[in-house]
């Protein structure tokens, strides 16, 4: 791993206050993203992938609160930063693209102006030059006839085009880290591949690190160098992609891989993971939040989870992991 990561999240915990008690949405989440590297955050709905991203971006819902942890972007701890410091970083050094691009764009502002707003805000372009620069951004994300499209509203565009506009907005200030939160959800399959290629190409071109959030393990396998598997607000496993697929050590990861359509020969072989996410409001949550669904549960699981050094190559949060194997040549390519 490179010595100076683009982003280092250490021990992040987030709590949501609700009417029926506090929800401990994230607990002790740690991972690193090296410069120029693509890391995937993978997990089922409610596992805390998006909350991690929102906490890092400082755009958590008002009910959510960071209770512990650091998120280091260079020397700046994003979680302890003043609003002014955050404003300086958000959109300029870290940018984010969201799922459902149609609703993620301002419905009553022409898309060109939305890009121009960001360009002007981050000060690299004058108010007068911004519209032309916005058209250039649209061209860069592969929109045909960008001068005309710049004047269009989001409702006049397809979902794929809206996502291209989102990418243009996110990359307007040439950030060093891009967080893509399920960027292809709500797009049709052919568009999905095109959008993912676009993000990869632009990330390479700008030397940008990417955090790719998805529930699709197969897609994560194709697109990222490292995968962080999350379950119920915990990081359960964090390993280089090839290693993770060849040698999953956490029982949850193993079941996830078995539940991925790609790896099953027929529908009968396709496994379902027993049980569901535990209710995070419970006061008696076990230290390992997977233990109640886990086929490999042992007595030691009642102890606090093992902690790992943040730079461990293959981290697994389990007292009874699957045995480590000699890594054979991986069949899944790391993008």
């Amino acid at each position, binding site marked *: 791993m490179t010595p100076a990561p683009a982003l280092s999240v250490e021990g992040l915990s987030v709590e949501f206050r609700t009417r029926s008690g506090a929800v401990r949405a994230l607990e002790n989440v740690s991972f690193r993203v090296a410069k120029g590297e693509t890391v995937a955050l993978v997990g089922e709905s409610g596992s805390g992938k998006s909350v991690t991203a929102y906490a890092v971006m400082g755009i958590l819902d008002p009910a959510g609160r960071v209770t512990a942890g650091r998120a280091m972007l260079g020397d700046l701890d994003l979680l302890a930063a003043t609003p002014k410091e955050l404003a300086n970083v*958000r959109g300029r050094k870290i940018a984010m693209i969201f799922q459902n691009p149609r609703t993620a764009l301002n419905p009553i*502002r022409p898309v060109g102006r939305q890009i121009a707003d960001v360009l002007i805000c981050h000060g690299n372009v004058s108010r007068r030059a911004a519209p032309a620069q916005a058209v250039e951004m649209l061209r860069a994300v592969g929109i045909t006839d960008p001068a005309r499209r710049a004047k269009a509203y989001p409702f006049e565009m397809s979902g794929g085009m809206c996502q291209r506009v989102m990418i243009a907005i996110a990359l307007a200030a040439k950030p060093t880290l891009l967080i893509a939160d399920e960027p292809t959800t709500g797009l049709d399959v052919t568009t999905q591949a095109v959008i993912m290629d676009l993000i990869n190409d632009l990330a390479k071109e700008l030397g940008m690190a990417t955090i790719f959030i998805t529930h699709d393990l197969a897609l994560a396998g194709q697109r990222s160098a490292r995968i962080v598997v999350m379950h119920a607000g915990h990081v359960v496993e964090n390993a280089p992609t090839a290693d993770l697929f060849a040698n999953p050590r956490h029982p949850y990861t193993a079941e996830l891989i078995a539940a991925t359509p790609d790896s099953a020969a027929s529908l009968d072989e396709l496994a379902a993971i027993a049980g569901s996410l535990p209710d995070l409001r419970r006061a008696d949550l076990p230290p390992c939040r997977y233990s109640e669904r886990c086929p490999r549960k042992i007595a030691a699981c009642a102890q606090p989870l093992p902690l790992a050094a943040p730079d461990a190559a293959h981290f697994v949060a389990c007292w009874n992991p699957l045995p480590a194997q000699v890594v054979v040549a991986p069949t899944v390519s790391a993008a």
Partner: protein
Amino acid sequence: MGGPDRPGHDDHNERREMLTMIVKRLAMAIPSLIGVVVVTFLLTRALPGDPAVYFAGPAATPQAIQQVRVNLGLDKPLIEQFGRYVVDLAHGNLGTSLTTGQPVATELRNRLPASAELTLLGLIVSIVIAVPLGIVAATKPNSLIDQACRVISTAGVSLPVFFTGLILVYVFYYLLGWAPAPLGRLDVFYTEPPHVTGFYLIDSLIAGDPGTFMASLKQLILPALTLAIFSLAPITRMTRASMLAVLSSDFVRTARASGLSAYTVIITYAFRNAMLPVITTLGMVFSFLLGANVLVEKVFAWPGIGSYAVEALLASDFAPVQGFVLTMAVMYVMLNLLIDILYGLIDPRVRLEA
């Protein structure tokens, strides 16, 4: 790329869309206006009391009453009376008031500016207070301002206008003596400014007469405040609710994540989107105000169309009541048209639907 794809339209296109929309909405208003003409005619005929008896006087003989009835055309069948009414309307003739002997159209024209000035000022005061209050309350939920907002919303709806009006008069005129006597648009020592718009505030400024301006402003403050207090509640509440909804929407999250300034996020992104329901509420509030006006004008002896209509109604004087209701109906239609136009200006999707 699925679905209709209508990339960027130029300004010319946009203007044509707006124009089409306005013409269509105007055409849609015609049936409702016809309905209003029929209903007002029937309603005023259905009112209790016989105008012929009223105007012939208490000592009149049956023959005299019959004579008055013939003179007024009230002996004719209803359908014929209606036919005449419509023909007169087409000529801009709203009939003549039986109590004052003046043509209704003239009286309405003279009195409308008084009501309009009062209502508009009340609405403007209310907007200036309510909209910023609603925005701040939404951006800082559970803050002191949010609590104040809640108190205003509750208090505002539970106070009837005549009551607030009377309280204001009692405190600021009777107890404190800060406000002038609630007797019309201008103190007796001042003469009304030369008629240009009919709004004393504007006319006195045009005439370069600051004394009259201040005098008419003093008269206006209390009744306008009464109306403002009345309309504060719905506007504040709607602004707050609408802002809260928009602030938690996906595109505001995008705007925040792209590092736009708080001002841009709240005003340019959130508020412009939150304005649509607020404008709808404004339209509704304005029509409530037109109704509330009738009471406020009574309390402050304001020579507007509301008090005119009330007096005519008490005297079973058809023509002014019909004229009043018709004027109100036309104003509602114009108001709704204005709201549609504003909608179209703010939201490009509305222009397309037209």
